[in-house]
């Protein structure tokens, strides 16, 4: 965590769709060079939270502030980039045309705009496909284009809403590499996902969000320490699995062997899935 003033401050944020409480008392800060992950199932309130943070939705209570001011102000929005869920692309425009359009809308002109568009396309590895229309691109390429459109004007604050949904493993790795590069350049990134391994790999801090409430927010090791529980020693024998919870798996393995236990043994260390389960009382895929 650095000591610079936060790029984003969310304080006691609440929002409702009619009678449905979508967010309640959400509070966090996002700093430069930090990737803050929001982990939760579909319908947990992640996208609503992003909409409130970007000024798209007006909070019912609480406050959202960017370093430059209120995100409801269009001028403040110039300092942020958004890669919405599902891409939100113009199928009839080429990759270059879309990136140039958004560069132009963010105030870039002439050569500066062209250079920024080229750089953004190269950053996501789409320079070869620059003149292809979006409708002809694969799912992974479309998500990369989505990211290029969000970063073309080099905003300090980025909102990436489930950018890897429907993306193959190769494209996913390319995207995650790109996001890590952005973090190294000092961008602050709010990243929503329901994929645990992504959150573990990318995020400096992870927030567990469920039914509109931010249940926990901390670094991955701290979350594991607090909610992960003990590692599991798993014994596979005669088609069955016997689980032994243990703070010291090596000692437990020794004891099992001494007792003459048969079969294959493996050790499972707790991950974010266990954290999520303990925090919410249900698995993340339940509502997905």
């Amino acid at each position, binding site marked *: 965590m650095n000591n610079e003033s936060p790029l984003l401050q969310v304080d006691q944020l609440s929002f409702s769709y009619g009678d449905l409480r979508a967010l309640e008392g959400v509070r966090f800060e996002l700093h430069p060079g930090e990737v803050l992950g929001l982990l939760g199932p579909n319908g947990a309130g992640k996208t609503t939270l992003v909409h409130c943070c970007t*000024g798209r939705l007006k909070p019912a209570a609480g406050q959202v502030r960017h370093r430059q001011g209120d995100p409801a102000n269009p001028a403040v*929005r110039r300092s942020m980039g*958004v890669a*919405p869920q599902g*891409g*939100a692309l113009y199928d009839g425009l080429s990759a270059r045309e879309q990136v140039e*359009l958004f560069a132009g809308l*963010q105030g870039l002109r002439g050569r500066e705009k062209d250079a920024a568009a080229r750089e953004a396309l190269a950053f996501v590895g789409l320079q070869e496909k620059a003149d292809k229309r979006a409708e002809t691109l694969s799912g992974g390429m479309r998500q990369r284009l989505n990211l290029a459109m969000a970063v073309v004007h080099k905003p300090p604050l980025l909102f990436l809403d489930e950018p890897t949904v429907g993306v193959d493993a190769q494209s996913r790795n390319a995207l995650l590499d790109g996001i890590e590069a952005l973090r190294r350049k000092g961008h602050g990134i709010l990243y929503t996902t329901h994929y645990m391994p992504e959150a573990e790999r990318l995020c400096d801090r992870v927030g567990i969000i469920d039914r509109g409430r931010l249940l926990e927010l901390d670094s991955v090791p701290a979350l594991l320490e607090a909610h992960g529980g003990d590692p599991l020693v798993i014994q596979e024998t005669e088609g069955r699995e016997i689980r032994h919870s243990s703070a010291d798996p090596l000692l437990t393995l020794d004891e099992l062997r001494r007792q003459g236990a048969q079969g294959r043994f493996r050790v499972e260390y707790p991950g974010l899935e266990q954290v999520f389960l303990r925090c919410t009382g249900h698995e993340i895929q339940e509502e997905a």
Partner: protein
Amino acid sequence: MKAIWLLACKDWRLLLRDRGALFSMLFFPLLYASFFGLIFSGGGSGDRAISLVLVDEDSSKASRAFVADLQAHKSLRISEAGLEEARDLVRLGKRQAWLRLPPGYGEAGDRLFFGDPPRAELGVDPSRKAEAGMLEGLLQMIAAQRFNQVFSGGEDSRQILAKTRDWLREDNGGQVPSFLRHLDQFYGTLDSLYESQEEQGLSAEADSLQATESGFGGFQPIVLERQEVVVRRQGPTSSFAVSFPQGIVWALIGCAASFGLSLISERRKGTLDRLRLAAVRERDLLASRTLACMGVMLGVCLLLFGFAVLVFGLRPSSWPLLFTASLASSWCFTGIMLSFSAFGKSEQAASGIGWGLLSLLAMLGGGMIPLIFMPGWMRSLSMISPVRWVVVSLEGALWRNFAPGEMLPALLVLFGSGILFFLLGLYTSRRSA
């Protein structure tokens, strides 16, 4: 301002790549206007003339003169043939009628007011009953023109008079019967009149004023001095002047539907939200959409009229008024487009409801059946449809010779209803957002 222009360019680019939209807003209206224009024009002015085969068996001076008069008439298309060939041509439907001038036609024609009148035989295709009546009237009229020649003086008139008087005696054994004596005296008096005109050097073709001053000939029942008068046309200059305003209506409907659907699609896919998040102001989004839609509508209007002018020779009575009418129509349908986009949350829903309503407006307003063919009650009902005012304003500039003041009510209705539709669309879309 830059954002508005960028977004409008984006819309135009997307539109140009959408073949379905291009078809509905440009090619379909063009086909519609051209097709119905051609149908109602009857395929050109040449085809409207009655085709007549002449069989001149007399070959006299009078019959040749009659044939020449027929050939000169623009409502007839004359060819000549023998009797059998003429009958075959009509029987096979290649010509509409045949006319035989038998031997003796000219001689009979020269006998003024006595003896048998000149006779001719007419055969008409039975499937052309309407043309048959018109043809008989035309032949009577052209034949009657021969009498003008007799009473116009000059050498030809005197020859006819002399021949007539000779026949009058020959037919009666050298003596004029008492009951025809007055006719003979009339011919003599007329001949003396023409003779004295010639002695004074006044030919029949001489200046009518001189003739009047001399006290002889050149009689006219009334002397009319022709004055230049601008007459208001009561009908369209061509069938394309009726079909192209209708085509424009369909083009405007196509544009409104295409832009409306693309707006719904943007809303559904999230691109509209993405633009908002890219610091584009709400008013800029609205202005860019209005600019793009109006620009395309106006462009399509001008393209279609340009096509009608170049290909079908349409001549608007006022280009400035035509431009103003196109502008007002485009504005009105831009408002309709915004309302259209609020009809449903999905493209399918909006397409179904929107096209239904727009087709109803087109049907009521003269987009399907021209206003001039509608019964009175339907014309009154059409007042509620903006399509009617589009058609009226365009026709006013094309062939109704509207003065700016006469055009004003239609323009006000179009601009006013455009504002109403605009506000309705804005209200509905904000409410749904």
